[in-house]
């Protein structure tokens, strides 16, 4: 981990959104939350979020494919919504809550229903595109109401998989949605 990256101590573990970064500069200090942990970092204005996650935070689960917003491999959740991290500047995420594939089942935690479904349905071949698909699918399962088939297709269309025919990926997402919404819209009682 780079020396200018400091994870906050407990005293600052909950921080308010920083004020506007009004002063024009090629570098900014940003504070944000990544997978639940507060992070403070000095970033160059031009640093893409994908590179910030991979090169600075060493969260290399987020994969970088096309680097111009076409393939969806680098999709992460920004304030709960899937977004291309290669089409986002790190500095734009000051104050944001980010989630990456590493945050789904950290350490020895059991796989999430989405991860388990991708495993059980074999929703992958080489796995390069999988972290992006999993993050988009995770957001689908967190919606208040079950997304319909068209919503699922629309969401998955934001990702390219060059190995599979997408069938197992769609099966995996449907399985995860079945599990999540088994008891109706408030299935997990959340």
């Amino acid at each position, binding site marked *: 981990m780079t020396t200018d990256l400091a994870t906050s101590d407990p005293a600052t573990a909950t921080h308010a959104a920083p004020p506007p*970064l009004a002063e024009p500069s090629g570098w900014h200090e940003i504070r944000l939350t990544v997978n639940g942990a507060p992070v403070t970092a000095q970033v160059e204005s*031009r640093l893409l979020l994908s590179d910030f996650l991979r090169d600075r935070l060493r969260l290399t689960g987020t994969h970088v494919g096309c680097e*111009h917003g076409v393939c969806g491999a680098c999709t992460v959740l920004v304030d709960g919504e*899937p977004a291309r991290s290669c*089409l986002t500047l790190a500095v734009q995420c000051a104050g944001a809550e980010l989630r990456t594939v590493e945050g789904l089942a950290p350490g020895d935690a059991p796989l999430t229903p989405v991860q388990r479904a991708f495993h059980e349905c074999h929703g992958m071949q080489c796995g390069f595109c999988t972290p992006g698909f999993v993050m988009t699918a995770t957001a689908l399962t967190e919606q208040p109401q079950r997304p319909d088939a068209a919503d699922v297709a629309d*969401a998955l*269309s*934001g990702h390219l998989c060059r190995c599979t025919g997408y069938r197992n990926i769609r099966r995996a997402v449907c399985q995860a949605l079945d599990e999540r919404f088994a008891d109706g819209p408030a299935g997990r009682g959340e």
Partner: protein
Amino acid sequence: MRRPERPGGSRLKPTPFDYSAPGSVGEVLALLADEEREAKVLAGGQSLIPMLSMRLARPGLLVDITRVPGLDRLYADASGALHIGAAVRQSRAADDPVVRDGWPLLAAAIRRIGHPQIRHRGTVCGSLAHHDPAAELPAAALALDARFVIAGPGGTRTVGAADFFVATFQTAVAPDELLTEVVLPPRAGDGWAFEELARRHGDFATVGVAVTLRRAPDRRTVAAARAVFCGAGPVPVRLPAVEEALTGTDAGAAALDAAASAALAGLMPADDVHATAAYRREAAAHLLVRACTLAWERCS
């Protein structure tokens, strides 16, 4: 096109720039007024950031407007007009019940933009100010008689949709100005449809059309028609001959044929790598018929 520079061999990276996220429109304008910096407005960045990464754009300063209080407002005013602030994300607008009920054409056009992952970041006003001629929102804005509120050094002015789109990637917004909101007048009861031909789901339209139709009090004839094409020229194309061919008719087969003929005669799209002009024209005429049929069924 020149092959983009790729420093480090294989990776796409923007050239260095300064970034600022000011807290007021006044501060935004002050930064945009600094000619030496070559400032550019950043909202969602879904068009701008790839251009930065490919080094097709090399601004000296990005002014992020998403932290300006008030620019994220989305509301219907007392007159029933819809106001969409410059920082309102596309997915939020498309999902808003006020938009879905009152301006379903806008919601439908937004849902044809890219993918949810793009629409969560991209803004309505950003797409309008960027003005890709194949984009959906400029055509929808012209079909819906949008007004554009532009703040600049001399104060605030309002521009109608007919004057807003100037040329490919060019609008009435000057480099030292900011599009602060788009205003859509109420269109309750109009039938609507947005139809497009795209090579893949989520791609820009090869060609597309936004249609609105209003029924006359007798409920049998078309009182007003609007048809605006995207991907058919450097700006959204509105053809009076198409609208005249529909107005006063029963929107039946003969009227739709006449409208399609008017589109074939009036559209002058360009050839490009995706489609020939002749193919675009033919496809546009078919899409027009489909859109008019849908719009007529949706009239209340």
